[in-house]
């Protein structure tokens, strides 16, 4: 007795599973490259850190800020230019990176990240419109 029929079926299932990302993307064809992020530079404020650092580690910085503010009651942070800024996501960062949908969400959705910041915090804009 040979099981070649069953094994052949197994091979086909296996190939389909492994190549899933390849054919899924060609069927869906929705991939348009990295999303563009919208930043409002009109107020001429300085960046807190370099773009490279921020792309990799903004969550670490925000986490450290949270600890400083909540646990040490220290609300100010000195950036490399010597300027002291308020440690606040919604007041400081989001004065330039103003639009959550067009800045935060685009990249987070693209990378499949769901930060739980917004479980408690609310966007300033939403607060104003409500």
């Amino acid at each position: 007795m040979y099981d070649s029929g069953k094994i052949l079926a197994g091979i086909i299932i296996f190939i389909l599973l492994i190549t899933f990302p390849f054919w899924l993307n060609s069927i869906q064809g929705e991939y348009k490259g990295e999303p563009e992020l919208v930043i409002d530079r009109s107020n001429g404020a300085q960046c807190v850190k370099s773009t490279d650092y921020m792309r990799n580690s903004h969550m670490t910085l925000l986490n450290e800020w949270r600890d400083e503010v909540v646990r040490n009651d220290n609300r100010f942070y000195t950036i490399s230019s010597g300027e002291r800024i308020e440690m606040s996501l919604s007041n400081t960062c989001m004065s330039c990176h103003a639009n959550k949908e067009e800045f935060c969400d685009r990249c987070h959705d693209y990378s499949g990240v769901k930060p739980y910041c917004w479980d408690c915090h609310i966007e300033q804009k939403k607060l104003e419109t409500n």
Partner: protein
Amino acid sequence: MNILISAAALLILILLVIVGIEAAGLEYFFGVFIPYMAVVIFLSGIIFKLIGWARSPVPFRIPTIAGQQKSLGWIKSSKLDSPATILGVVGRMVLEVLLFRSLFRNTKYETKPGQKLVYGSAKFLWIAALIFHWSFLIIILRHLRYISEPIPSLVPLLQNLDGFFQVGVPELFITNILIVVSLAFLFMRRTADPKNRYLSLTADYFPLLLILAIAITGIMMRYFTKVDIAGIKTFAMGLVSFKPVVPESINVIFYIHLFLVSSLLVYFSFSKLLHMVGVFLSPTRNLSNNNRSVRHVNPWDKPVRIHTYEEYEDEFRDKMKAAGLPLEKE
């Protein structure tokens, strides 16, 4: 010695990437060529092996059983551990593949001072193997977020469960801890006990160390050295949509991670790791125990020429009669 060879092989792989990226600038080679080649070797290697298995005859029924065979209606039979039907075999295989029931029966034997040889149950291998395999599967499925757009809804679900405790930002994934701990245990299991160390080969240590190194580089990127996730997704999407772009500004640790994963894929079909597909073809598990109720005729047997006693007597009747031998027919 076997550990040293495995560790040295792993070190050479890592050094190759570091030299290749930092000194020779072979980003395209390590980022595009090697991963494609690895996937091709992985797929073709497994298909090659499977075709070889498909051309091999299935042995006579040799299921190893752990329960009462199906016989008379009033004798309670074990439907899973001595399956007589296809359904029972499927159930047995599903539990074997998903829960490793064979490993659950693992025993250890030891001589304690002043005692005779003692046999006992040893569940740690089973639990560590279970934790390792499931963590690895969840981690691989989580990686779908890099190679699909839009991301299938399974991924955020897994991430939510995996980051359930919401420790830190980025959230600590439980599987990241579990995979390292279970791999460390599986490694210790081989090294701590002299009997197991004697039985362990380079081919046992190497995959353990390789997967451990893959897990550790991944953990480093997520929690410590940090990488540009969106940039890596763009790179990975380039690979899966066959429009490869070599990423700039990506840390060498990412290349080590990628190269070790590629090495794992290449190594896969030539090593014990092939048990991923081989488990489905274990004749002691996937055959039903129906030897007594179904006649299994060996299909590749040549017909045997039979010479019955009647024919024999017909042939030699005269001589037998002359010799005075008793005959069945006069």
